[in-house]
């Protein structure tokens, strides 16, 4: 008797729609609709492609941030880390270019991934072994990375070698099957991220460590290990974003990635990941990154609100998103 009852409810559950998962996408759809009404240029494929491509960097970093935040951490250093990794990568590429030619790009990219992972490892180890609040630790490393890139560039910029520029250019400006390369890279990162978070034991442990570290500990999960690994993933994501970003500007400067950490955290939180840890929402994060960039784009296109107020509108959005979470559950 109980079995019958159960299978019936289960089949009903199977079709249950999780509104909290769809929320960010509905918000994005509304914004796009409003945009189409406001400005006829908004819905052109060129403009939409531009918006999505520009959101790629924040999206890629925000995937890593989804892991960190879901595991109960927070990383404020991503913007500075991005600038630092970019600087190191360009220096390595430039120094290898005379000997190896265009292959130096791959070597530089490899070095960037390693440096990013190490930066993340640093954050993770100080947080878990030092048992210091992640907010404080990454506030510190944020300053350190920013100072390092300023020092490396001597306050100016580190341009990429002229010979490499042409070969590297397609990574940002090129396209494959009509879709810009950064979007392909973002899709790949998202798929890997979603697989890791939803389909592996690691992902399950990340969310358990964030939801209740005591329960995780009593269940034999290494909370410190899981959290450290999340920071390392974050570092790798930052490096991937840096690799895509370099051809866009062709240089690393002390202002590269400035305030990105706020956009990244905004994207994650709008996407429905709880800032206090627990459930991570990869797809929501993507919607969040798109929302941020779409709004900025709309404000530039329309004359209604000064584009200098972009940050203010983003601030309003994050607060509205949080209020919606609280009252619409």
């Amino acid at each position, binding site marked *: 008797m109980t079995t019958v009852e*159960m299978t019936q409810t289960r089949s009903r559950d199977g079709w249950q729609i999780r509104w909290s998962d769809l929320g960010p996408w509905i918000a994005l759809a509304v914004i796009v609709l409003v945009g189409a009404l406001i400005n006829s240029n908004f819905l052109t494929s060129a403009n939409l492609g531009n918006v999505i491509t520009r959101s790629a960097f924040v999206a890629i970093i925000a995937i890593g941030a989804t892991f960190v935040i879901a595991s109960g951490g927070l990383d404020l250093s991503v913007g500075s880390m991005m600038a630092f990794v970019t600087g190191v990568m360009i220096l390595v590429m430039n120094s290898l270019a005379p000997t190896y030619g265009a292959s130096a790009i791959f070597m530089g990219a490899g070095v960037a991934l390693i440096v990013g992972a190490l930066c993340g490892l640093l954050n993770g180890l100080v947080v878990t072994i030092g048992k210091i609040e992640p907010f404080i630790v990454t506030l510190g490393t944020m300053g350190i990375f920013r100072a390092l890139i300023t020092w490396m560039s001597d306050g100016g910029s580190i341009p990429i070698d002229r010979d490499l520029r042409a070969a590297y250019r397609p990574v940002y400006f090129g396209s494959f099957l009509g879709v810009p390369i950064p979007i392909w890279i973002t899709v790949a990162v998202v798929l890997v991220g979603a697989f890791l978070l*939803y389909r*592996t034991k690691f992902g*399950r442990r990340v969310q*358990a460590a964030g939801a*209740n570290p005591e*329960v995780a500990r009593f269940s034999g999960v*290494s909370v410190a290990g899981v959290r450290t690994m999340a920071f390392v993933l974050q570092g790798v994501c930052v490096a991937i974003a840096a690799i895509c970003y370099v051809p866009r500007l062709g240089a690393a400067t002390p202002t590269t990635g400035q305030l990105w950490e706020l956009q990244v955290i905004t994207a994650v939180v709008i996407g429905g990941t709880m800032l206090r840890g627990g459930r991570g929402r990869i797809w929501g994060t993507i919607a969040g990154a798109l929302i941020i960039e779409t709004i900025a784009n709309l404000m530039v296109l329309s004359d209604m609100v000064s584009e200098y107020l972009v940050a203010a509108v983003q601030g309003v959005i994050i607060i509205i998103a949080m209020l919606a979470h609280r009252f619409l559950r």
Partner: protein
Amino acid sequence: MTRLSIIHAAEPSSSATDPGLPPVLEVQGLGKTYGAITVLSGVDLSLQPGEVHAVIGENGAGKSTLMKLLSGHVAPTVGQIRLEGAPVSFPDAATAEQAGIVLVHQEILLADDLTVAENLFLGREIGPWWTVSDRQMDARTREVLARIGSVARPRDLVRDLPLAQRQLVQIARALLDPRKVVIFDEPTAVLAHDEVAALLAIVRQLRDAGAAVLYISHRLDEVEALADRITVLRDGQMIGTFPAAGMSQRRMAELMVGRRLDMLYPPKRTDPGETLLEIEALSVEHGRQEASLTIRAGEVLGIGGMIGAGRTELIEGLMGLRPATARRIALRGEDVSKRSVKAWQKRGVVYLTEDRKGKGLLLGSDLAQNLTLAALTETHPGVMLHPGRETRALEGAVSEYDIRVRSLRLTAGQLSGGNQQKLLLAKIMLTDPAVVIIDEPTRGIDIGNKSQIYDFIDKLVRDGRACVVISSEMSELVGLADRVLVMRAGRVVAEFAGDQITEENVVYAATSSRQDHQEAAP
């Protein structure tokens, strides 16, 4: 009693325990019901000024509920409270305090980062207009602290004070204004021996000043030393009020326990198998304890004692969940050096926490995630998750442990306490352990689920596993365990087997300090 009369003879002004005096507080037919569960009923109580009235009972007997009803923290469902003859009802604790009734809580409820004086006057600061006068508050704080013999200073941060001094600050807060009735809820739970003596002196001082003191404790030696009258509660029922004179600790324990056992428990097992786990001189950091025990297959080993006896700490130390040292720990004769939940799990030793909601379950996550969290490797070989296997594991657990759910997609927080406990039991059994340690297996669970959990424990033991049950419910230990260790102040103070396992024996060993009495005797 003689000592008391001498005091009063010497102090004619405090006419105190004169039975002719009207009681300061009278309670008739007091009871409290939560939904369908009655936690306290039919309490009649009277408190004379200048009397120490002890309330004793097992854990869960309703002592704390009674205190909360009297002090306005919880509203009674039925019954009447009269203060100096006039019926009263307190909407909150503040009103009760204004009327002169104050409860000194068992837990320390102070703001760590504020000073002693700030804590004392929190919410009732004094000073002209809307400003506060630190000078006035410091002066009154100093005076109250001196009265109760505290060495803390008004400007000390509570954070910097040792536990015993914090307890005194809490008492000072309660005694800032004159009180007619002072209620102490287990005031000595966190105190060391000489600190206890100081606290008992404060209680006597209050009594001699003419206040009525209601004193709740499960330390029967304190009750014997302090009380004028004793009220016994059992299972939320009032057993009676007795004069303390001539009442032995053993008699108190018998009154607390009272009843015979029913058919709640499965029949006991008779022949235990090989020794599985040997623990020699395990001591937990910050504890004075050093406990040794052996755990045998095919046997339920009960660990009894009062709350705060160090049982949970001991097991958490064993499991590597808190720092601990041991002379030797061996599983099946083989020394174990690495102690962590994971390492133990690989060797077949698992622990089910007493703190279901804080340490056991991810309340916001679904049942399957909770079920497999400790056994991710067993349920999901390789790197990836296998949703199909997980669902099958959940279906198996739901039917084997009779977890009553409307849907398999509920979150753990949506289950009733009994079903949560069954889910946790299923969770730890998923790794197919040899030694199962369960802390408070039936806390907060209704009788039907209780009996089922006893049957599960019986079955796993008959399958040749070992089970350790930590319980504060004496009847549970008596009904379930084949062997019982009793802990008191971090040490194993007694071991009972067979017919020796009685509630009287366990309660007596857990509460009385026979050593102290032997030392005191000439």
